[in-house]
């Protein structure tokens, strides 16, 4: 598949959203709400999940499945409240020694008046800073769209895993084509140039792993992820905190 087809697959309406992953992977999940500053953002879901014997904090962009739910969840584009809720729950995870697993699926952080007035830039910046120093293992799994800063805002992680057809890009192919070539119809070419597929990102050392989609049999994918997340947690929980943080820093530091 070329980049354009991957982008289409990642955006497909029938693609499972984060809720399905959470249900399919974890043994129980309790959603926790609110950023304790302004509100609760339905585009960003967070809570405590159990995986066998261990508990993890889960953070996820949720696009929703029905039209009504999609509108309510703002199609997975979070406001600053979403990023602040995510940070609150990550700090809570740190306090109680829970690893953090995030599911990334957003076309980007929301661009709107309220989002600007309440500091979208500041909210994301503060997540980047704090996640870099979070004293528990962090795993980011890209399940669909990885839209720029809005994706990165919950993806400063020890490892980044990409579903086979997920993508992660600095700008949408349409945005890139209209800014650079004044023609959004050139989006397919832009998608190629941006190097946004899972394979590209492995090559660029942005991602560590590609998760097979089993030709749409997502139950299989969930079972695989359940096992692999368990193994990731077991391995990273063994690491001394300073080593974990040093490795996380260098994972990003070396990209130039």
């Amino acid at each position, binding site marked *: 598949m070329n980049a354009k087809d991957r982008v289409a697959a990642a955006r497909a309406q029938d693609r499972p959203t984060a809720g399905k992953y959470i249900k399919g992977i974890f043994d129980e999940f309790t959603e926790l709400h609110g950023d304790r500053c302004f509100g609760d953002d339905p585009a960003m879901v967070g809570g405590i999940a159990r995986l066998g014997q261990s508990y993890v904090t889960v953070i996820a962009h949720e696009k929703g499945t029905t039209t009504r739910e999609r509108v309510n969840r703002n199609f997975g584009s979070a406001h600053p409240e979403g990023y602040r809720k995510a940070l609150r729950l990550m700090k809570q995870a740190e306090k109680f020694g829970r690893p953090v697993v995030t599911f990334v699926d957003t076309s980007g952080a929301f*661009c709107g008046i309220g989002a600007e007035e309440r500091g979208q830039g500041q909210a994301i*910046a503060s997540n980047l800073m704090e996640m870099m120093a979070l004293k528990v293992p962090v795993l980011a799994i890209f399940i669909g769209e990885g839209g720029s800063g809005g994706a*990165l805002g919950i993806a400063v992680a020890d490892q980044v895993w990409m579903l086979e057809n997920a993508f992660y890009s600095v700008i949408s192919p349409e945005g890139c084509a209209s800014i650079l070539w004044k023609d959004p119809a050139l989006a397919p070419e832009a998608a190629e140039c*941006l190097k946004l597929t899972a394979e590209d990102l492995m090559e660029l050392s942005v991602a560590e792993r590609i998760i097979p989609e089993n030709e749409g049999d997502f139950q299989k994918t969930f079972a695989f992820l359940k096992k692999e997340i368990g193994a990731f947690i077991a391995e990273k929980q063994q690491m001394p905190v300073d080593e974990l943080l040093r490795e996380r820093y260098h994972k990003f530091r070396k990209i130039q």
Partner: protein
Amino acid sequence: MIKGLFKKPKNDLEPSVSGRIDKPAEVNIPHELCTVCPSCKKSVFSSDLQENDYVCPNCGKHLRLNARQRIHMIADQDSFQELWADMAGSDPLGFPEYEEKLRAAELASREMESVVTGTARIGKKPTALFVMEPAFMMGSMGTVTGEKIARLFEYAAEKELPVVGFTASGGARMQEGMLSLMQMAKTSGAVKRFSDRGGFYLAVLTDPTTGGVTASFAMEADVIAAEPDALICFAGPRVIEQTIRQKLPPGLGRAESLLKNGFIDKIVPRNEQKKFIARMLRAHRKDRKEG
């Protein structure tokens, strides 16, 4: 192969590369006798404008400045020592037309990348200093931009220097794809480490500070100042208008509304910046931190 698909669009907004090179180096500096202020449209003697730090004497509009002009304005005389001056932008993804754009930006700005880094004294206080260059691809963040900034924070942590930074940026640089986006995480990590060691970081946000720079090191300073009327936002007004298809409230994304909403500490006009920075540096001297 792909390169052939992309012909340079021919319109008035996109001058050809060769046309761009012919422009004077300091695009914001008027070389004529008189300059028309872009804000109040009044004619101003260029010499007056220069004496006034490129602030319009009629309406107070702060015109954009090159990195070197800012350094000249802020650093004590002859105190600036540049670090990593020869690090130049490269084309890691082989993006169409990017090499040419980089070379044109070098010629237009006379800089190798969109940030100048080094050390200086400000009001006799030694500090690490970075100044972004709007004439280099609108200060967009390439990998080398992020690398120089990360290095500066690491250097300052090691030498126990504070960091003063002037931001001006259109955001991430799409021609470097995800490698550009990763610079947000990288610089944030460097700021965090510096901060956790007790380092003091003061940022002055200048017009325009947007996108990936706003969502990383611009908003991570201990003290955040801004120039009057500077555009400081995550998404620019045009992007927001296209997204929500509504007229925007006046002043959205301007320094004054960020001050009102609690996202910056202070608006500091250009002629007071040096004094302000020196005062903040004195207030955060390491040797005062006895317990």
